[in-house]
Structures are given as C-alpha cells and as structure tokens.
C-alpha cells in the first residue's frame, strides 16, 4: 500500500508538473529585481532588471528594459555613498535620483568603456526612500524608432559577434528584442558568456525573454538571476513591448493574468508582443507551436481583439512572415542555431520601424551571412 501510495503521489506530482510546467518560473518572476544588502533594500519596478549584486556601497543591475525605475530604501545606519552600475543599459542613459518628497539627489556619472554599461555615484539619504530612474533622453516621447528582432543563438554563441557587427552598421537601431534561446542549455557559464559577448560586440542593449533552451538547466533559474523575468512588459517612446515565457508551448495562468493587464493598459496604443515558441507554427504539419491548438487560437484571438500591432517569435530557426488572427507575425530565429535548410535564409535579424502613433511602419529582413 505504501508503494502504491508513493506511486500515486509521484504520479500526481508529475501530472501537476505537466499541467503547469511554467508555474515555478512565473512565480519566480515576481522575485526578480528585489534584493537587499549593505543596508540597502532595492526593488526594481515590474522586475525589469536583475539585481546582480548589492552591498558595500555598490549596486549592479542587468537591465532588461530601456527604462528602469527602482525604489531604494536605505537603513539609518547604512553608508550614504553608493555606486549604481547598470549593465545592458541604453547608450546615453541617465540616472535621476529623488526622494519621495521630490528632492533631487546628487548624481555623478562614472565613465565606462562599454557603451551599454553605465555607472553613477549617488548620495542616498540614510533612513529614507529614494526613487531611481535610469532612462535615455526622450524615452517618454512618441517619436518613431527602430529596433532589431532576433532569436535563437544557442550553440552559435561563439559566432554571435558577426550579428552584432552587422547591427553596428545601423545607427538607428535602439535596442535588440530577443525572443528566447540565448544559449544552448541555459547554464550560468553560457549566460555569462552571452552577456560578455553582447557587451563586447553590441553597441545597443538586448532585452530578452527566455526560450526552451534556457530552461534545460534548473528550469531557467540562472536566467532569472542573470537576465531577468521571462514575462514582462515595458513602454519605450509610447510603444508597449510585452515579452512572455512560452518556452513550454503554453502560457502559465499567472502570465495570462498579467497579459490581461498589459493588454488593457495599451489598448489604444501600439503594442508589440514577443515570445519564444510561437502559438501557431506556420507550417502546420510540423507543429512547432503551442501544445494545444485551441490555446494558441484563443491567445492570438485575444491579442487581436486587444489591438496588438505586431507579434514576434523565435524557436523556429528561419524567417517566416505571416499573420495570426490578422496580426502581422514574424519568426526571426536567425541567431545561428542549427539553421533550417532549403529556406534561402541564413543568419539574420529583423529591423522593425514602429511608432506610438503610426503603429508598425516596416519590418525588414537583414541578412548577416
């Protein structure tokens, strides 16, 4: 009986795991961007950055959005002199630090060699709460801009510099929106190598969601620690960007609930939605999309009803242009992972022109090889 009971419990656990395989990651997302150390308690709004270190008067963040806002609470007996370093930041990003009563705190920029690494000395007030905002100039305008869409580097990580070199030729690109599968198995070493190569080769930051390869190692916990949330939403120059963790071929109900809010908040504006596994594989016989076609149809229908302007996917290592429920959709999995053959497309990325008022203006395929 004990054996049968144990088997039953095990089966139930397995069943539960199969029914909501992304639940743990969705829960873990809520903890991203929060850390304490050296008398400082830091909370990044909406978890848009991973706290890499905090303590001894230094805070280092890995930004996963162009605009970061954090709430810093300093203990009364803690040191007031702090150095805030933001890696993967927008070039030209500036720090604004102010107390809750609106008093602006002194900030001094610390020069850095890499264009996407920014650092500032800031004098925090012991016993007080400060609001820190890191953003590039014009972040709240509605001017059109261009970004790059990319996915699926995986085992081609040693060659990813070619893509960054090609990106560097286009000064108008503001950032890279990465739709998952940065690395082959999502280990700490691989993710650190990815970030090192990014900082070394790319003049612009990369904002990502995770892919199914990131969750191979410990269900993506290293990704959460080093990169950030799998599902999040941010606004840049009036355009909302939402990335979601679909790496199990589904959205967890927690993410679905978050999505409802993100969709509602930009119902009238321009909205770009990105995820790794596309809800629907344009090659239906292959079936590389969601595990349940009903779920995928329901999702794209919801996105369409809420006025999403563009959907971007990865997972399939090629380039596809199609529509889902009428929404323009692109798969741009040209990061270098085992390429789909006979498609006439090698490594590539997508250059997307978009504006808050204009919506999607143009999406162009840019070949790297």
């Amino acid at each position, binding site marked *: 009986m004990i054996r049968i009971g144990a088997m039953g419990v095990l089966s139930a656990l397995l069943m539960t795991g199969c029914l909501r*395989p992304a639940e743990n990651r969705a829960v873990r997302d809520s903890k991203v961007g929060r850390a304490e150390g050296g008398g400082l308690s830091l909370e990044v709004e909406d978890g848009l950055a991973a706290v890499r270190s905090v303590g001894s008067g230094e805070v280092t963040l890995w930004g996963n959005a162009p605009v970061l806002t954090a709430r810093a609470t300093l203990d009364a007996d803690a040191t007031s002199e702090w150095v805030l370093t933001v890696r993967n930041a927008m070039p030209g990003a500036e720090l604004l630090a102010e107390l809750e009563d609106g008093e602006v705190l002194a900030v001094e920029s610390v020069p850095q060699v890499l264009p996407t690494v920014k650092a500032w000395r800031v004098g925090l007030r012991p016993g007080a709460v400060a609001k820190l905002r890191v953003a590039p100039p014009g972040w709240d305008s509605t001017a059109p801009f261009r970004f790059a869409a990319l996915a699926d580097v995986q085992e081609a990580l040693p060659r990813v510099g070619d893509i960054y070199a090609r990106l560097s030729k286009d000064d108008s690109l503001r950032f890279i929106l990465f739709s998952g599968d940065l690395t082959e198995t999502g280990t700490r070493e691989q993710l650190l190598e990815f970030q090192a190569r990014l900082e070394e080769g790319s003049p612009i930051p990369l904002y990502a969601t995770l892919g199914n390869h990131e969750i191979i190692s410990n269900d993506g916990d290293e990704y959460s620690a080093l990169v950030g949330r799998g599902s999040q939403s941010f606004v840049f120059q009036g355009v909302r960007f939402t990335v979601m963790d679909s790496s199990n071929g589904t959205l967890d*109900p927690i993410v679905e609930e978050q999505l409802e809010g993100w969709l509602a908040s930009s119902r009238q504006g321009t909205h770009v939605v990105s995820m790794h596994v596309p809800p629907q594989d344009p090659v239906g016989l*292959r079936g590389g999309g969601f*595990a*349940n*076609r009903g779920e995928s149809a329901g999702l794209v229908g919801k996105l369409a*009803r809420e006025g999403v302007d563009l959907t971007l996917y990865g997972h399939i290592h*090629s380039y596809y242009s199609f529509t889902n429920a009428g929404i323009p959709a692109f798969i741009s999995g040209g990061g270098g992972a085992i390429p789909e053959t*006979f498609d006439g497309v090698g490594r590539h990325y997508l250059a997307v022109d978009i504006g808050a008022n204009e919506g999607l203006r143009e999406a162009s395929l840019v070949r790297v090889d």
Partner: protein
Amino acid sequence: MLSAQSPRSWPLALALVGAFFVLPGRAQAQDPEPLSAFELLARSPQLGGSDIPRDLPGRATVGTPRRPRMPDASLPMPDLGMQSPLPAPEWRAASPGLFMSKGEPVGAEASSPEVASAHPEGEPASPSSELLAPASTASAADAPMGMPAPLTPHGVPNSPLSPVPASTQALLDSSRSFKVVPAAVAVVPGLLFHGLAPALAGDGHTARRLFALEGTGLGLIALGGVPIALTGASRRTIAPLYAVTLAGFSVFGISAIANLYSVASPAFDPGVPASSLPPLEFEMGYQYVSDTAFDYDHFVSLGAVARFEEVKLEATARLSPNEGNTQVRMGGAYRLLGEPERRRAGSDGSSLDAELFGLFHRFPTEGFTVIGGDVGFRGRYAMSRVSPSLAGSFAEASIGMALQGYSYPGPVSDGNLHSQLLYSFGYGVWLGRGGGPFKGEAMLFYDHRKDGFAGGVRTLSGGVVGSFGLRARALLTETWGVAGEFSASGALVGRLALVYALGGDE
C-alpha cells in the same frame, strides 16, 4: 497557412503502413500445463469465457515456448492458398505424423537442448493439438474465435496481405506459465531491451521478434530524426521525415508494450476479437477536462456508430453545458482490408481503413470556432502474427492530415487556415473471450494531434509531443455496454459513457 509538403509524405507513409502489415508471423508449439485458479477465473463464463475446453490460442495451457520449426522441405505441402512457411492447422491435424517429431508438438524446434529435454521421446502430443479436429471443410467462417482468417480485401483470396496463420500455432499450446522474474525484467530493463523478458522466459521466438521490432523502431527514429535535426526541421522536408520518425516511435512503443504483454499474458486467458459487432450503437456519458488554459471542465458526451458492410459511420459530440464549448465530429471509415466489423467471425481483427471526418469546435469563451476535416488511414494488426505469445493483443496505427480553418467572430479581421499531421498508435487487447455477449477492447495509445481536448504535452521542446491515454469499450450484454477513456498531456481528460446497441443479435 498551409504547407505545400503534405502530398510528399503520403507515398512513404503508405509504404510504412504496408510494411507494418506484411510483417510475417510464424508460430510455435507449446506444452500443456495445469490451470491455476486465476486462470480458471479468467476463463469463467462471468468474464465471457466458457467452461467448455476451447481450441483458442489461450495462455492457460501454455508452458515453455518453443521456437517454430520449419517444415521439412521434402515433405509435401498442401496448397492452402497462403504463402506460409508453416503448414495450416487443419493439414497438420489431418497429418500429425508429418509434423510431430519425437513426441514434440507441432512446430516445436527440436534443435533446442532444453526443448529436447523437456519433451522426452515418446511423450504424447499435446491435448491442444488433439483439439484440432479434422478440418477438411475448414474455412474462415468456421475458424474458432481469434483464429486469424486471411486478411483479404473484401474476401479476395490469396491477397498479398493474407497472413501467415501464426496464431493457429497457438492452438498447439504447450506449457507456459506466468513467471515473476521475466515480468519484472520486462519493466527494468525490459522497456529498453524489448526482447529480454521473453528471452528470459525461454521464448526465444518472441524475443527475436521484439528485438527486431525495437531495432526497426530505433532505425526509423534515426532515419527520420537525424535528418530533421540536420535540416533544422526544414519546411521542405519535415512532413515525410516526421512521418518516418513517428513511425519509428510507434514500432518502438508497440514492441515495448508487447514485451510486457508477452510475459504477462500467461497469467490470463487471452481475449479474442468479437465475431460481430452491432450495426448500430449509441452512447451517452460524461467527460471531464482539466486544462489550466481553458475554463471548461464538465461535458456531456454523445456518440453513435453505424456499421454497414465495408462502411462505418461515426459521430461524436462533446457539449459543455455551463461554458458552452461544443465539439462535433462526424465521418466514416471504409474498410480496405480485413473483414467488416459486422461479420468478423474467424478474423483475427487485422484491418486497414480509410477515414474521412469533419470537425466543428466552438470555443465561446475564447471567441473562436474551428471547422475542418481529417483524412487518413487506420490499420490494426493482430500481434499473434508476430508471435503466438502475443495472441489476444493487437497494434494499431493511423496516419493522416487535417485541414482546419479558425474563425474569429467580431472585430478580428482575419482567421487562419492550418494543416496538421495526424498520427496515432496504440497497443490493445481484446476483452471478450468468445463465449457470451461480452465483447470489447482496451488500448493504450499515443495521439499526435494537438487540437483535441487533451492537446499535447507541454514539454521542454515546446508543444511537439501529443497525448497518451487508455481507451476501452465493451458490450456487457447484447444491448448494453460501457466506454471509457483517459488521456493525459498538458491536460487531463476522462470520459465514461453508457453504450446502447441495436441489432446486436443479428
């Protein structure tokens, strides 16, 4: 969006299905052994059995299995209309001297030392073989239940798919009994080495067949899977490669379960396919779905089956009273090979059908409707043709394609048209024992389709893998029966229905 590749998959898929059906089967003789209490119970009339000794390919009289013995080429072979390396049972029964060697049952191989020691010279022939009454007038219709009548396209004799009368060898049952060690080995490491358990049980013939099946399965997986990986699942080649890979998984999975069945089957009397199924069946029941992606859970389940000669019509409906989700599926199957279900007497249940179905599925909460059609083939193969140890079980596989349109009423300006590869395989057992009205089947299955309530498994590789489940249907009396199904993937689906049959006594 449709792929242009779908037609390319059909020739290969058809070839695979054909190869599956022409897999040769041979039989072996087995020794008699006293029945255990459990075996007696399994044969009881309450479970559809009969107290009268039957000449079935049963396990109750089995013992140490023997490898089949090829007949002496110098001996005369009767023309029975079948290309069998072994003689037909009626011929053997009529000419026992030709096929008995030193007291061994028919078909046993004398070269095996342990076999020779187990059958000392002068031992009388097995009682089972004595049950083989003179069969000078034997025909498929006269054959006992579960005996493999030739699988012919609508009765055409000498079909290329006419089976080797493998399970007839099981009539010559010798002593086989359930053994714990082979049964345990069948799980670990038997699920990796599929012939290991029967080999340990002394059933070399079955062991070789299962190892061959497993090797074939692994070979097909490699044959399809490696190019898929190397081509990055190219849209140009994915359809045939996918079909080959799935066929490999099918063969591998079937041999894995057959490995379990071969060593577990001595514990019970194997079932036989029903000699006939009612022309009309209705069912009504309840279905529960647990899927975190949907609000629905409770469903009314309705169904109907109408059986004609070669044609079978089916309709199912699933209605969620509280949520409004409605799925209706209607269509039919045309029997290309094998006996119709209405008059299956003597057949071992092997068949090949062409299927055509239409689908309507409304998702009111999610705000879309699916309308589509499925076309494909479904084949069933009596595993007794692979080995007599597998008598009472069958393998099933299907392949096809679905075209579906997704419609979004309201402000959504555009729908989608999608294709889908349909593929399933399963391993089942006949539940009836040939006596009484009890008849039915149960099958463990894998279904690759992703548009059902079960959908696919939400895995590390996204949504590639389909669902797994157990399906059973049985008529308990001439008019009443039950049907049930449980499948698991990213969702859990359970269904239980009451079946009402009309015309079952015809």
